[in-house]
């Protein structure tokens, strides 16, 4: 009997760790996710905004789908307790205040997901002007979260 409680606790800890990973692992995963996002946003920016003559619908659709997939992957689960302090690929820039602002951050995450899904939809139409506008909305949702929870360099 006596062993049950500690055992349950231990199993819970192991299960949680397996689900969301250790602190460093969470930071590394989320840094990788944002880095991968930037490859895709960079492609859209280049082909839709900076060099429209290079517009390639297949690449834009692929990039928009990748962004939507990352957005829908549950990034918010990589912001576990203690992940404001720690080194993933590099030192995390998460503000410690994040943990008091989780509700707000969740709302911003939901906006990001909504705008990213919309971008994937718009990309499928191949309408460059509409993609540009919707891409701007995705970027604004990125920024709103940066402004809220990211430490300035």
């Amino acid at each position, binding site marked *: 009997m006596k062993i049950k409680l500690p055992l349950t606790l231990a199993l819970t800890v192991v299960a949680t760790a397996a689900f969301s990973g250790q602190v460093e692992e969470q930071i590394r995963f989320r840094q990788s996710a944002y880095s991968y996002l930037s490859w895709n946003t960079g492609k859209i920016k280049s082909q839709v905004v900076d060099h429209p003559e290079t517009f390639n619908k297949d690449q834009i659709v692929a990039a928009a789908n990748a962004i939507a997939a990352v957005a829908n992957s549950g990034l918010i689960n990589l912001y576990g307790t203690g992940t404001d302090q720690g080194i993933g690929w590099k030192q995390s820039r998460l503000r410690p205040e994040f943990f008091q602002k989780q509700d707000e951050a969740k709302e911003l995450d939901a906006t990001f997901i909504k705008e990213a899904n919309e971008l994937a939809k718009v990309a499928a139409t191949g309408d460059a002007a509409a993609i540009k506008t919707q891409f701007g909305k995705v*970027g604004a949702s990125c920024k709103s979260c940066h402004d809220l929870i990211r430490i300035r360099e």
Partner: protein
Amino acid sequence: MKVTVHIWDWPLRLFHWLLVAAVVAAYTTGKLGGEFTDWHGRIGALILGLLIFRILWGFVGTTHARFASFFPTFGRLIAYLKGDWHGVGHNPIGALSVIALLTVLATLVVTGLFANDDIAFEGPLFSLVDKSLSDKLSGLHALALDVLMVLLALHLAAIAFHRLVKKNNLVIPMLTGKKQVPKALASSIPSVGLLRFLGAAVISSTLAWGIWNGGAADYFIPVSSLQTAALKLGW
């Protein structure tokens, strides 16, 4: 006995109000982000041109536009605080404000040229520096904005103070160029030399345009040595 004289030449006034409009636009587009971020960059290029123009005009403009005429030296500041300063252009405290505002705006513009937002914006000179240095400069850009907000609050507070306490309207002269001054100080500025204005305008817009297009990158050899210095400082 007061008389009306010209104190601010028209290029100076044009500069001032264009700068006001550009700073408001830069602030708004910067806060909105998204699609407006590219406009933020373009407005930054406009501000760069305006600042270069103001620096040139500080040497070739009319009387009170020149830095030498109003530079807030220690002696001038002491004299002003003692009540011994008599002039009609920028008073020494106002001159401090001018220098501070120009310095902070220049910091914003220069850091912005190298900045990135980790979303979809890179300044026109981003490729000249490492990503990590660009990140630092982007942070400095945000910090300089905080300083600018404080300076602008002081600027507006000083205008309100002169209006309400000293019964001295500073806004109308910046619009019309004209001010009522004691007869003893009455001397109007000379008319604007059109060639000087054109020269300053052409030089500043050419430089700003060139830098904005990254075309100046080839001439910016010192940037790489700045970067080495920054790395040595542990930045």
